[in-house]
């Protein structure tokens, strides 16, 4: 009957049934217990695996857990930390800027450059013939200096100036123009130069020969 019902279920169950029929009762019980234990272990493993997968997927679903795993941790509460220094401290720590200063020194005596007085030209005027010269400043005008035979008593006074420099007037004789000397020296100059150079050369030559002469005597 067993064979008939199991006939359609396949050769594996047939073989199992055959093995079971060949075994004794004790052996049959042991074999069934082993199979049951194996089946139970498989069920447990598959259950635990499914739970693992659930935990993994739930952890994966939360990206925060991944981000948390890479974190160096929270900053400790009330920790001492360094921050940026204040701007004032930075500027204080900076080396002072050394700018080039203008050089100046104090003179003991204050001297002023004399300011030249402006030149005042007086218009030419004519003295009356009988006018005395006492009214003029003494040092400036001296009749014997200025006067000569060419200037009559009623001469025209050339324009003069007040100032620190005497003004050159056009009344004197013109100085002849200075002609520069010739570019080529004279024969005598040539001769003198040649003679001088010759003397120098002779002296040097003689001195050298004296030095080079071996010392004789003791």
């Amino acid at each position, binding site marked *: 009957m067993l064979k008939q019902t199991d006939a359609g279920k396949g050769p594996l169950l047939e073989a199992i049934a055959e093995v079971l029929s060949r075994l004794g009762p004790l052996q049959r019980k042991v074999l069934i217990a082993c199979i049951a234990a194996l089946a139970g272990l498989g069920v447990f493993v598959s259950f635990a695996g499914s739970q693992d997968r659930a935990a993994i997927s739930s952890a994966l679903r939360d990206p925060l857990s991944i981000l*948390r795993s890479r974190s160096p941790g929270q900053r400790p509460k009330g920790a001492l930390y360094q921050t940026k220094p204040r701007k004032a401290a930075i500027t204080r720590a900076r080396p002072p800027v050394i700018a080039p200063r203008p050089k100046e020194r104090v003179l003991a005596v204050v001297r002023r450059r004399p300011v030249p007085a402006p030149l005042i030209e007086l218009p030419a005027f004519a003295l009356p013939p009988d006018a005395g010269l006492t009214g003029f400043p003494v040092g400036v005008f001296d009749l014997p200096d200025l006067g000569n035979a060419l200037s009559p008593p009623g001469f025209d006074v050339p324009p003069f100036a007040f100032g620190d420099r005497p003004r050159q007037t056009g009344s004197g004789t013109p100085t002849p123009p200075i002609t520069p000397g010739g570019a080529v020296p004279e024969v005598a100059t040539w001769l003198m130069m040649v003679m001088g150079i010759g003397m120098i050369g002779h002296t040097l030559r003689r001195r050298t020969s004296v030095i080079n002469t071996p010392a004789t005597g003791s």
Partner: protein
Amino acid sequence: MARTVPPALAITGAVMSMTIPVQAAETTVSPPVASRRIIYPAARLPSLRLPNGERQTVRSLLDVRQPMRFGSYVWDDRGVPPGPVWMRVDLSLQTISVFRAGHEIGSAVILYGADRKPTPPGVYPILARARHHRSNLYDAPMPYMLRLTRDGIAIHASNVRAGAATHGCIGVPPEFARLLFAQARRGDRVAIVGAPPA
């Protein structure tokens, strides 16, 4: 019982099951890249909550397998398509994450405001960018500056080290700041979340 799986084991299992290896042929020493990327299935994309209540979906995350050190960062935008860029600054985690088109392309440890000068949480658009900026409040160089608020809160390059804090700005490592500056445009949004422990 099985719910108390240690998260490290869970993450490791997830990584082994859901990551793709990056081509080892490219040997770019700098920037340091995360070797792997955690890609979420397109059917069940998670999202991150912003301080203003919005949610931003996340398509993938860089797999940084260990806590980052101060001054270190990761950057890997290979294979990430162009798209909208946004940044998430987490003050309690002391990290920043840069997302492009939903994929995380960079992350770094940050410095944030001291207790007396806290960094305000919120969602801010980038108001201005400046490659060579010098603070007129502190007379200090702040290269690669991304200004967030009109009163001076910005993301800029800084010497990120343990035991340091800012006056409200967000300091990132200089090389990371350079990469971030190249990515960010005016108007891109920066979410500063996670109030620091009071």
